[in-house]
């Protein structure tokens, strides 16, 4: 049924429908209403979960790691500095191959303090090994949470569901809330083969040597590098798994079909703007305007950032004249992280599009439609050469340093 709620409540509703069993909660803006809503679901008896109000984000992920190792479906949520406080634990969760799901309400990182939206927090965690999904609106938040739980337990890799702080977390939109029975049919209970069990004791995450080593029965067991190679292989294979899960979700709920990238008016486009999250939907209005002005341009939202859907992206962008990547994150001293990844994905093409990179919206700086119109029109009018130094949008008091 359709309801009108905030993005945070959309996420919490997804977690409830997924029947999370252990929830670790620590408040941080703008994630907090999600955490509050879950406490309400649990205290009112709508969700039979253990709700654990921990004393830090590091502990939040510790609770999830332990609860997941013990065989339960675990969830937490955070933002910005909270995410970074748990970084050690993020690595631990994925190294231990635990199907934890975490929402990240994207927010800029201090110093200086900012509570407003950009995507530096989760983008800076791209190399941890977690799967990263990005939602563009409230419907995608709840749908992504449900798909994330299924994906995580199918491939034994934790999943981050990221959505823009305030722009999505605190705004209200109508979205369809799936029925519990339908979700139950889609998402079976978590039933791990290995878990903490006094009847079948195992020692998890022990010190592992650089080389392979025989077990007590003489069989050679992997060293650290084999275990990490497995993770990488399984992450690459997760692309196909997620495509399959998205297809099943679309069949059951009527939404989906674009698991990796979501193109808008791209088919006949000579130019394509690329963005992650709500910005990709904001850009649709800009694209419509530019189309009215006769410019053959589209926009593509990237919905899965890790594992990187390089083939889907190369397919979508092959033959375009110019690709303009707009980012609310930066690999400082280099380029936008998505820009670098897209450039890498396009390298194999014979006729590579020209690429431009724009940085905007850091720390919540307002992104004005006119600015987007101007920069896209400028890039399309003069694609020129590939630009490896990003241009900045909307700087005040100082000149953009470019080139």
């Amino acid at each position, binding site marked *: 049924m359709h309801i009108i709620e905030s993005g945070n409540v959309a996420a919490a509703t997804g977690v409830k429908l997924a029947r999370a069993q*252990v929830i670790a909660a620590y408040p941080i803006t703008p994630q907090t209403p999600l955490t509050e809503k879950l406490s309400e679901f649990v205290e009112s008896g709508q969700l039979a979960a253990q709700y654990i109000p921990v*004393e*830090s984000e590091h502990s939040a992920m*510790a*609770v999830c790691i*332990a609860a997941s190792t013990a065989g339960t479906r675990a969830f937490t949520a955070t933002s910005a500095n909270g995410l970074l406080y748990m970084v050690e634990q993020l690595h631990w969760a994925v190294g231990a191959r635990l199907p934890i799901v975490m929402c990240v309400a994207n927010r800029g990182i201090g110093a200086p303090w900012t509570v407003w939206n950009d995507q530096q927090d989760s983008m800076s965690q791209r190399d941890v090994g977690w799967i990263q999904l990005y939602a563009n609106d409230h419907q995608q938040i709840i749908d992504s949470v449900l798909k994330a739980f299924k994906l995580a337990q199918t491939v034994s890799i934790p999943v981050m569901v990221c959505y823009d702080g305030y722009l999505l977390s605190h705004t209200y939109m109508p979205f369809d809330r799936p029925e519990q029975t339908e979700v139950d049919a889609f998402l079976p209970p978590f039933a791990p083969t290995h878990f903490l069990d006094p009847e079948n004791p195992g020692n998890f995450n*022990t010190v592992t040597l650089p080389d392979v080593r025989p077990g007590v029965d003489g069989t050679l067991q992997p060293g650290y590098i084999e275990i990490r190679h497995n993770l990488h292989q399984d992450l690459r294979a997760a692309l196909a798994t997620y495509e399959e899960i998205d297809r099943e979700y679309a069949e059951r709920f009527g939404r989906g079909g674009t698991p990796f990238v979501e193109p808008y008016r791209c088919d006949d486009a000579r130019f394509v703007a690329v963005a992650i999250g709500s910005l990709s939907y904001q850009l649709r209005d800009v694209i419509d305007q530019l189309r009215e002005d006769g410019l053959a341009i589209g926009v593509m939202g990237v919905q899965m950032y890790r594992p990187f859907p390089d083939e889907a992206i190369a397919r979508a962008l092959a033959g375009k004249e110019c690709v303009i990547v707009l980012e609310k994150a930066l690999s400082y001293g280099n380029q936008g992280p998505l820009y670098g990844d897209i450039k890498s994905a396009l390298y194999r093409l014979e006729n590579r599009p020209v690429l431009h990179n724009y940085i905007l919206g850091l720390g919540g700086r307002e992104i004005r439609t006119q600015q987007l119109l101007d920069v896209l029109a400028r890039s399309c009018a003069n694609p020129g050469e590939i630009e490896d130094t990003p241009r900045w949008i909307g700087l005040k008091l100082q000149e953009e340093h470019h080139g």
Partner: protein
Amino acid sequence: MAEKTTIVNLTEEEFVHSGNRACTGCGLSIVYRMGLKALGKNTILVVPPSCLTVLQGLYPVASTKLPCVNVTFASTGAAATGVRGAMKALGKDDVNVVAWAGDGGTGDIGIQALSGACERGEDIIYICYDNEAYMNTGVQRSGTTPQGVLTTTTPIRGKLQAKKDVPAIIAAHGIPYVATASAAYPLDLYDKVKKATTIAGPKYIHVHTPCPPGWNFDTRYTIKVGKLAVETGLFDLYEIENGVFRLSAPSQRVAGGKRRPVKEYFATQGRFKSLDPELVEQIQQQVDAKWATLAAQAA
């Protein structure tokens, strides 16, 4: 309390394999073996980096016959919380969830997560084996290293500050059971761990654990050194059960007047060799003052 365990009625069941990677004379070996005997089979362990990580063995071999999850250094109390949460979610209420960490992992980097777990009233047993420095990384000072001790990061003058009183900090949370124990009194330790399994809520047991290489004494003297710490009144064995403080038998004897001078303890270990007589006298006076209070309480 239940009848005292003796070497006659102590269970023969073992949960630690022999031939593990602990050092010769390791106090933790005694503590771990006795503790697991008391906990029994229906137990899940949570272990952060420490000498215990080494004792437990290298993948794919493990020396512990109980399920165990190794976790990050600062997270032990929270990870135990997560295991307990999972047990509640799964309806397995009879499992002992036991965190087992060193003194640095408990009183320094792990104190936040432990404090959080105590404040929330988590139904866990937390055992801190206190070998009074970061032994696993090569004997660096910790908050629980005593004053005057030579470590690899207090190499000349010895540690300038006093030992952090971690059990007192945990007791201040008002949890139902706090106890101290010693590797040199394994049956006392056994009974305290056993008692902890019968109490709901957070239980904390702080175990003095002599370390031959870290404390610089011969491997055959682990028990002797541990006993001297108690007999000199430097380390006290007690229980705080629902807020009621009670000295355990070995420390009751000390309260009864059979207390040896602290210099006897210091003389057994190379780590105290830079102690000057003035500081020894100062520590003796501190210990005398503490025991004047404790003896008055015990009387």
